């Protein structure tokens, strides 16, 4: 497969970064206040991706199951950190819940795909495991952040309604049910929208990559279908887990909602 890839020279690579200069110059001239962010993001993208390239080269050559496991663990930790930092609400015990949700959803679905659909050889082959799990986790991470944020702002907005429900004898789960529904729906929207637009509006990243690498378009399409289905499956698992693991944290042990006045 790698035979079809056009290798970009380092001269061309640095030349491409001149494109970033345009964005930087515009921001600086118009005093948009984004110059620093543009610079930092560009450098991060540059450094992180190149480092990942070298790391994967090493990993592909000397892979063992525990080394692959170590890389996956590092990815889950980073994804947890990024997802939780995007959540604006302050929620106690959010990190462990998000960690577990991302770990379970990404590794379970990832390995089902790698072993059952792609038939990796050896079973922990980093060339398949790392990009597949990474793709799943990147998606799940964004969706979890959206879902959790929505869950807690929706519960705050429904604080009075939930108070009435609990006063009538509702359990926390019953009181929170509409918010859980809304949050899970909100988290699933992007991936479902992507699935509907795929092939018409957008060519998803992975298919694009394979086409650029010279793969047969139908083979690339089949691969992409598998990827999108697994993304939506993993997304659902991650969002549902994260929502159900966290909503109870805003209820007291006696089952009433801790509205803003009670959080102390």
């Amino acid at each position: 497969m790698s035979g079809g890839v056009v290798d970009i020279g380092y001269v061309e690579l640095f030349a491409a970064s001149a494109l970033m200069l345009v964005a930087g110059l515009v921001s600086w001239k118009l005093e948009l206040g984004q110059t620093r962010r543009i610079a930092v993001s560009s450098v991060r993208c540059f450094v992180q991706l190149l480092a990942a390239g070298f790391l994967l080269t090493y990993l592909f050559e000397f892979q063992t199951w525990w080394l692959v496991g170590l890389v996956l663990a590092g990815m889950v930790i980073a994804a947890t950190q990024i997802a939780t930092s995007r959540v604006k609400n302050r929620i106690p015990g959010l990190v462990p819940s998000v960690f577990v949700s991302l770990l379970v959803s990404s590794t379970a679905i990832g390995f089902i795909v790698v072993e059952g659909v792609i038939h990796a050889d050896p079973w922990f082959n980093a060339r398949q495991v790392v990009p597949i799990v990474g793709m799943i986790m990147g998606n799940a991470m964004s969706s979890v952040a959206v879902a959790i944020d929505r869950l807690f702002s929706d519960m705050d907005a429904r604080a009075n309604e939930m108070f009435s429900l609990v006063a009538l004898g509702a359990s926390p789960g019953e009181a929170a049910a509409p918010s859980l529904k809304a949050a899970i729906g909100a988290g699933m929207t992007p991936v479902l929208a992507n699935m509907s637009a795929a092939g018409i509006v957008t060519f998803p990243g992975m298919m694009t990559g394979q086409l650029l690498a010279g793969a047969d378009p139908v083979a690339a399409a089949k691969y992409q279908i598998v990827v999108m289905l697994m993304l939506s499956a993993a997304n659902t698992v991650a969002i549902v887990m994260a929502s159900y693991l966290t909503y109870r944290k805003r209820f007291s042990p006696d089952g009433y909602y801790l509205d803003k006045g009670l959080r102390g």
Partner: protein
Amino acid sequence: MPLFSVEHLSVSYSRDGQAVPLLNDVGLELEAGSVYDLVGPSGAGKSTLLRACALMMERSSGELYLDGVPSSSFKPSEWRRRVCLVPQQASLVAGTVRDNLRLPWTLKVNAGERPPADEALARMLALAELADVELGRDVSQLSGGQAARVALLRAFATRPPVMLLDEVDAALDDESACAIGRLTKALVDERTTCLRIRHRAADGFASGSFELRDGRLAYADAAIAADGASCAEGFDPADYAALQDLASERPAAVGEGERP
């Protein structure tokens, strides 16, 4: 034995990380068949007291009893099914009036019980002077006062033995507030009691009032003065015979109910 009693209740809340006492060793007893008022200056902790009675607030100390049975031997949701707090803010769920009145029967705590029939619900609406509100009307089309009364009826329909009303008549005009007073009185029978926070002039239905001030509670029997007690004038419980339809909604008596 009082139907509902509170002993040595203390509640504090945290402000800037420090515990500030709000209620200090408060006790009260509510007899079956009576309505009580809870009065006191704003910020004295009246709503907090009701919340604590419904297990919706952390207590620093104190025990609550329903028919002599301590709250600790109930599941919190089972307790709230029986000691029902109706908050000041009427919050109805999206849907029709019928959806809202039947909402309590969608909860696990009432599993296995049948919601009241439409006729019973309609009669209840009429008693709350909401006869012109159809069960199928969407709640977004109700006025504030109508919504407040529907929220109140939703709690009444489950026939809780103890009703805690947090200024439910605040949003109502005088006539509607009187209607709520009459309905409350009619619902309070030999197996029911009611404690209500009110800021209006006495309506003649309360047999006593508790005054909360500086974290302490003082009780006074209702004055037998007839001043302004006009709501009670001409009140005849027989007019509310339709409420008998709801008698079957009572939760199982204490002792028969589900206990953990």
